[in-house]
């Protein structure tokens, strides 16, 4: 199951495992999961929005 959980410090973790779904987990479809795993997007108030501080390319 692909899902997101918002930690107590406000950081969102994107997870995938076969454990029973945690309370408060937000189930993600494949597209949402891919977007969030790219680091280019974050989850904010339940919506996927552009990450204002994305990982920089290793140039």
């Amino acid at each position, binding site marked *: *199951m692909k899902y997101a959980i918002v930690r107590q410090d406000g*950081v*969102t*973790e*994107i*997870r*995938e*495992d*076969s*454990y029973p779904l945690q309370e408060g987990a937000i189930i993600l479809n494949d597209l949402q999961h891919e977007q*969030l*795993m790219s*680091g280019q997007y*974050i989850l904010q108030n339940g919506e996927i929005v552009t*990450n204002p*501080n*994305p*990982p*920089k*390319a*290793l*140039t």
Partner: protein
Amino acid sequence: MSGVPYTFATATTSIPLSQLDVNFATNATLGNTAVGLGNTVTTVGNLTLGNVAITSGTANVTITGGSVANSIVLGTTAGDNASAGYVGEYVDSYVSSVTVNTSATNLTSISLTAGDWDIYGNAQINGGTVGATTMSVGISTTSGSFSGTNLAKSAANGCVLSASATGGAVVKFRVNITSTTTYYLVASVNVANAGYGYICARRMR
């Protein structure tokens, strides 16, 4: 029909279909071992099966004290996941935009149940206006610390430096645990900045 009057191993001619029933009322004999067919459950011993296909239902096979020789296990093509507790189970976690400090900082973590796992991870930390030039990344059983069980195996200082960011990977290593254990992806950097990390594990057996 009241039973099957044939002993399969000694039959010298074909057994007529009229003598077979979907639910055998009496045990048939295969080789030298009595076996129930249909809805009767019993034990089969010293039996060699060839070209066996189970086309419906669920087959639960338990091998106690033996082994499966020359086995070829077909992988899945369904794009699904192994169930919890099964070989192939996968657990991962990704996090972005966590402030990584000069001291060991948790990026994210995963919880693994008892078993024999391969575990690995990586992290990247953006360079700021000052620029981060050195970082460490590791996997630890101790929160917020570059210490704890298995850390020595996690090659904690691999770094790729660039003008804009630094990145490091923790190469795959084995953890063999008998109880549920949390593994933390931990990083530090010489100039605090936004970090991104991924940690994952695969149950090998």
